[in-house]
């Protein structure tokens, strides 16, 4: 999967999993921060994203402290997935 289409897919998954009512894929800037500014996500949202990565992409994040860096933008998440997803 290309990074572009992964980013589009991720945006829809994030909206779904975090109940971001009224937000569409186009509303989310791929490079904008997700926490504090931008979408204003919080620590519970971070945990939900950790679950999303494990459930849908098979990637386990052991240390939730790493989460902030990985989740700093949708583009970053996509890159992290491409770097860590096991080739099947």
């Amino acid at each position, binding site marked *: 999967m290309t990074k572009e289409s992964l980013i589009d897919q991720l945006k829809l998954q994030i909206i779904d999993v*975090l*109940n971001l*009512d009224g937000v569409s894929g186009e509303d989310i800037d791929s490079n904008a921060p997700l926490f504090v500014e931008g979408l204003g996500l919080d*620590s*519970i949202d971070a*945990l*939900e994203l*950790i*679950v999303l990565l494990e*459930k849908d992409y098979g990637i386990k994040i052991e240390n939730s402290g790493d989460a902030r860096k990985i989740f700093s933008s949708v583009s970053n998440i996509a890159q992290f997935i491409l770097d860590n997803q096991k080739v099947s």
Partner: protein
Amino acid sequence: MAVYVLSESIVSPLGIGAKNNFEALIQGQSGIKYHYNTEVSPYPFWGSVVSEKLLCKPASLPLTDRLWDCLSKLEKMIMISVWDAVSEKMSLISHPKTILIFTSTKGNINLINNGLSEDLYLFCIAEKIGKIFHNPNQVLTVSNACVSGLSGILVGKRLIEEQFYDHAIIVGGDIFSEFTYSGFTSFKAISPIPCRPFDSKRQGITLGEAASAIVLGNEYSEIALSGGSSSNDANHISGPSRTGEGLKLAIREALNQAQISKNELGFISLHGTGTIFNDEMECQALNGLGLENIPAHSLKGYYGHTLGAAGVLESAISIQMIRHGKSLPSRGFEENGTTLSFHVEKEAKELKKFSILKTASGFGGCNVALVFEKANHPIQVSRSIFQKITEQVAFDVEILPGEVYYQGNRIYSQKFIGNSDQWLTQAYRTLTPGYLKFFKMDNLCKLGMLAIELLFKNNSIFEKYLPSEVALLFANRSSSLDTDLAHQACLNKAGNYYPSPAIFVYTLPNIIMGEIAIKYGITGENLFLVLPQLDEKNLMQQVQITFSQSSAKLIIIGWVELLADNFHCKLGFIEKTR
């Protein structure tokens, strides 16, 4: 009216009885062991679990053997600790001037897969306690996350002070369950090693189960309960305030009420769960109040986090510390791991001053602080009499499936076709300017949030008061059962289960108060009761004691009940000076 502690009891992995438990702790024993139980988790875990062998029916307990065998593990633990606390005195526990208060976060949640039965209702457990011990009053149930135990004791204290009752028996209990263990796992909060509160190597919580009971009364006894207060951080529903604002407020109020200065305080028994955030918050609060040099500990290194039992269990141990004149160290602590240090006790010592501050904090931003102290002679309490409230509460907002009323007038009507989420969301979008966080909430919180926004839509009454003067008093019948079922459904999904942290955080009914506190910046007293129905008498008693015994000047009262496609909300407020 001064309130004294007459007796206390504990049922834990270390045995039955407060004295037995205290002596085991002095010897350095801990209830935390390594367990392997696939009913709780597919992997082994550290936990503090009570052996079933301990739960034989006490010979004199007024129940047949057959009925005893029908009780759940939690119920047996509760009955044993209550019976032990009253020293088997039926006359005390069945007296009409004795109020029973049950505190728990999840009750018999391990039975959730057996289907919806009355076993799952917290007030049903409470009723059993009342029935078995022939108490004529409705047993109150407090379910306020991890502060439930201290909250229940505070309610008992205030009911006696206001002379509604002569005695209060508070019993707290919670059991180890897959439900709770999986939820905290999704929060990455479970420690892979026995918890180490405040330590640099701490990695989270260890869960535990226990039951504990405390008897309070108005007749003089060696130990007095001289101060108490609850507050809200108004910060985040699962993360505490970084600077411990709510906890500071509760501690300040409790110490003021007890008329104890920093120099007179002997020891602090903290919440100390062993998570990075909780322990850090507590160090900030203590330093912010100048209490960093008072010897302190967490008891969770011995018992784990016993949730709804914690406040009662840990108070019982604090009381034993005063009785024996000995303090207990903070098990698991070696080296300071919080940004600011404070005096964490590493060894058992002689207690120099006989007053102990006991605190707790919980999901929903709640905090409670109590002060226990040795009373060498009866304490004179001079407090101005608060005029008894005779009026009823006017519930300005009422919401039922299909209709919304404000001050008796129907302001919204939309056919309800059985989907609570859909109906509430549509009503919310139509009637309010909107709050983004609404859409992340569970149905119970959506119901409460819709109601509060309507209550304050054209009414800025709470702006007349300081945030700490506004109190929240909420109740319902089903606790958080609606969301509990959703969490359990996640666990039951065929194949690997992925508990959702966003669902788990709402499996506590007091979260609605947390959401309201955050939105409106309310930091005062807060209490969540679970009752069989909307009960004006009990709610007005709570209003009375809260106005009389705390700084509250405005109380927001809500009945927020929701289970599947059935819901009912009534919300109103009452001011102290009218």
